[in-house]
């Protein structure tokens, strides 16, 4: 991901900024132009809770080059209390232990490095709730 794109996505990736549809109240993450539920185009900014529940997950055994050091690792769709769903790695646990319904906390972590000399890209990951 080029540096400018990473920079543009800071509000969503660093702070979990999402959008709430003014028409039907659906919370979408990341923010988008049209509501997937009612097609409304009026949104207000909302912040997601730093916690959620695993909806579904998988274990990545053959990772992309930049994530090879981390394999095998779990990737899950996590639903926050606001109803937003986001895809994230689940770390600090046995990847095989990540199951639907598992309560997780969302934490600020390093996601990837742009090679040895490039920028460091931060964002959120999930860890088992304490």
């Amino acid at each position: 991901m080029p540096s400018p794109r990473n920079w543009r996505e800071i509000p969503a990736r660093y702070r979990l900024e999402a959008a709430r549809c003014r028409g039907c109240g659906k919370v979408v993450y990341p923010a988008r132009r049209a509501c997937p539920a009612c097609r409304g185009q009026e949104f207000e900014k909302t912040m997601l809770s730093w916690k959620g529940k695993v909806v579904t997950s998988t274990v990545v055994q053959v990772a992309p080059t930049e994530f090879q050091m981390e394999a095998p690792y779990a990737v899950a769709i996590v639903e926050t209390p606001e109803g937003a769903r986001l895809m994230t790695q689940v770390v600090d646990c046995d990847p095989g232990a990540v199951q639907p319904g598992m309560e997780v906390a969302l934490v600020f972590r390093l996601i990837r490095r742009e090679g040895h000399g490039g920028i460091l890209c931060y964002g959120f990951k999930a860890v088992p709730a304490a």
Partner: protein
Amino acid sequence: MAGIVGYGAYIPRNRIKAEEIARQWGKDPETIRRGLLLEEKSVPGLDEDTITISVAAGRSAIARAGIAPAKIGAVYIGSESHPYAVKPSGTALIEALGIAPEVHVADFEFACKAGTEAMFVSLGLVESGRVEYAMGIGADTSQGAPNDALEFSASAGGAAYLFGRENLLAEVLETYSFTTDTPDFWRREGQFYPRHGGRFTGEPAYFKHVESATRAILKKSGFKPADFRYVVFHMPNGKFPLQAARTLGFSKEQMATGWVVNTMGNTYSGSSPTGLAAILDVAAPGDLILITSFGSGAGSDSFVLKATKLLPERRALAPTVRSMLDGPRRYLTYGEYAKFREKIILND
């Protein structure tokens, strides 16, 4: 009066036992356990660094303070493992915690006392009225060369302190700094691991500065060692702080709560600040607390604190140090540790 309005700590879940490191290098684990009083240490994950540790600790500090993050006018992170050589760690933190953009930010370095250095300056800005709230953080993913004594202690973690003038969790009654030019431990530009002067790190460095600063703040504040309920010194290993305490007239009981080094390791800039967080996790209103840091090069900062009535209810708003030290942990083999600390040379 100014003081601490919020505090938080973070310790990664990964651990390696001293005996696992000793086994790798053919050393006797009992010698390490008895000599340095170290059982195990924390290890950062591949996705954890000074920035992520600072964000986690800072989030807890804000939660305990219960203030709007945008009111924080200054943020300083003290570390000797800032992820970038050029680009501040604090800029990512202020974005992540919703503090940006009206805030003064800088990264501090002073070996292991960069954290209390950040706290010292934060407190000064709040006392002067220049800012309403200021956050000082000490965090590190400490480096120690393989097969060096430092490898048994160099660990990862940190603590954040939010200073203000209202709704204090702990009043700051006195501060003192003691600094000289002493080459006991250093890392030159471009070097991966620090070097140290072996036994020279003891008497002319750690003990001289910790003891001088502590004696001076006792004199300045008018308190005696027996007046304090809790005391914490920088913890490069288990032995040094206990030895300094004995010399200065503090008991094991006064040291016990903040002495977290035996299972946490030395989190460098995060060491004494995390010990202080462990104390604030249990201190009762009115308890007097003394903290003296130490940073090679060399210097010590001392603070005298007094816990307030608000502390017990606010501490419940974020994880305690003991919950992280004694909670879920993952024990690594030396091979996994070498991978996590990126001690293995890989192809691009």
